[in-house]
């Protein structure tokens, strides 16, 4: 009984310690949010929300981030499928390549994309011939966000597909199902949660993207100015009210979206 009592005390002490550290962390996050909320009055927020700069930035961010989510799904799913289920030479190299945009500084990614799609770049020259200009346009935002954010989707879905028991795929094959039928009826439904999680992470990353986007698309107000770029520009040019309002909108929007997504996953 003595030992048991000792154990219980130790457990309590451990729990208190853990809770204290976790509490510190939560306090830190809440403090950041409170700072944002108290910087802007409701009246100012309402006024800013009606300004054309803010409306345009919000709209561009939503538009491009949703497009990036769709593009990530279209291009990312085959990549995730390939990396999860197929064995081939050079697979570890490709897996590392997919991880690279996550660890690369966004400014470096932006610079590489700027050179690649610029007037003298390999793809830039080719696209210019077809009359397509990427740099300092909304297409540039898409390219930058796709490059930086889609690996989050690919990694999540690749792990989910790889975790599907191989016997399920084998059973499907012996039952006469073609690889496409197996993909539609087994792989897709069983990786549904991971797809949603991956898309949400991609969306959140795209929405918050700044460095690469600024390098490739520039900061042209009401044309290529996303919310994050508008916040930066506002803060740098002394328009703290606009920056704070946009920051608050971004945070509230992200928080609500994540909450909705999580409750959807639980259901």
């Amino acid at each position, binding site marked *: 009984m003595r030992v048991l009592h000792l154990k219980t005390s130790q457990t309590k002490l451990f729990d208190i310690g853990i809770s204290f550290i976790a509490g510190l962390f939560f306090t830190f996050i809440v403090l950041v949010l409170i700072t944002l909320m108290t910087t802007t009055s409701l009246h100012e927020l309402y006024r800013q929300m009606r300004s054309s700069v803010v409306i345009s930035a919000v709209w561009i961010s939503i538009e491009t981030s949703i497009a990036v989510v769709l593009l990530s799904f279209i291009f990312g799913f085959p990549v995730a499928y390939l990396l999860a289920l197929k064995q081939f030479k050079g697979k570890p190299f490709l897996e590392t390549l997919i991880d690279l945009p996550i660890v690369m500084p966004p400014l470096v990614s932006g610079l590489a994309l700027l050179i690649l799609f610029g007037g003298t770049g390999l793809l830039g020259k080719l696209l210019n011939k077809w009359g397509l200009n990427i740099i300092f346009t909304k297409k540039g935002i898409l390219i930058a966000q796709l490059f930086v954010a889609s690996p989050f989707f690919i990694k999540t879905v690749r792990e989910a597909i790889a975790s599907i*028991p191989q*016997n*399920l795929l*084998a*059973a*499907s*094959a*012996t*039952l*006469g*199902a*073609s690889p496409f*039928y197996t993909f539609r*009826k*087994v792989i897709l*439904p*069983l990786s549904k949660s991971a797809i949603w999680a991956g898309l949400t992470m991609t969306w959140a990353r795209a929405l918050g993207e700044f460095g690469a986007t600024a390098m490739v698309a520039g900061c042209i107000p009401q044309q290529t100015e996303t919310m994050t770029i508008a916040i930066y520009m506002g803060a740098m040019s002394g328009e703290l009210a606009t920056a704070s309002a946009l920051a608050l909108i971004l945070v509230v929007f992200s928080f609500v979206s994540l909450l909705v997504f999580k409750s959807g996953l639980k259901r």
Partner: protein
Amino acid sequence: MSIFLEDITKYFGSQKVLDKLSLKIKKGEFHVILGPSGEGKSTLLSIIAGLLKPDKGNIWIDGQLVNELPPQKRQIGFVFQDFALFPHLTVFENVAYGLKARGVKNNKLKERICFYLNMVGLDMYRDKYPPELSGGQKQRVALARALAINPRLLLLDEPLSHIDAWQQEKLREDLKQIQQNTGVTTIYVTHDQLEARVLADRVSILHQGRIEQVEPPEELFYQPKTGFVANFIGATNILDGYVSKMNDNNVKFKIKDSDLTITVKKYPIFQDKRQIRLCLHPEKIILSLRPEKENHFLGVVEDIKLLGITARVNVNIRGLKIKAIVPRKHISSITRQTSVWVCFSSDVPHPLCGRCHRLPPHLRRCNQCRENKQKSVEL
């Protein structure tokens, strides 16, 4: 459908899992492949199903070479050890999966699914999801799913190993019944001898990537042909020695490291002074308080273990340890340290001469005998 596996060889890295394995399985046969874990039984099934490619060898199904045929086109039902049911589909949808993949229309589909669900006794559970079922029920669904595609061959990979003991017996009986009713050629892989005894028309013993012996269970379990088979099936009385005297109908066999000499029915392999290994099946030994049969030796009971309706008795005969499996009622007067006669007739011990396949009775001679005969003819 008849199956012929011809010299199947499979490597995993540098490890040879299957080594020129050859096996013929007749149409409608319930064939059990028995062997210890890790001997390549599941690999063999995967190769037959087309899920793995052999490094060498051919797979013939009804005379058709199917090596290059993908699993989708082999029409082979596969029941996996871990059930491999689709967790997001109901029982009905799981059983319907193969038919839907083949484009069977809805009205026909429903009828067929109900037929197979009835066959495995799960019609009531059609709307349940796999996680809501017991192990036995899951395996029944897997069986119905495999049968629903009307397979020309059914493969079962240790289907009872993840099922509670109390459900195994019923499922075993049902499995045999269903196989007999459908007549589908079946290959069943297991490491459980009881399953092989109860289910098989013929049993193959797989060892070191090769088939060690193929025979109907009643012959295989009482007439093991190699030391490995004898040990694996529990016929653990293996006697090393030599033929000390040849008579017309029997021989005298001197057991190595013992002063015992036993009388053994004359087998063609026997030659005077020849070193031989004999198997003395524990179930064919009689323990008696009086001497019986041609061979009877007085020994001391060292241990008794009760195994349900039988008992395993270890007897020490002047240093030679013999195991006997006898009906429990026969040992009521036997206790530890009791003296008891170990009795067996001369046709009970048989040589372990490594013969693999059972030939028709008129050709039943072991390889060594044939070689010897051939040599003598040549001389």
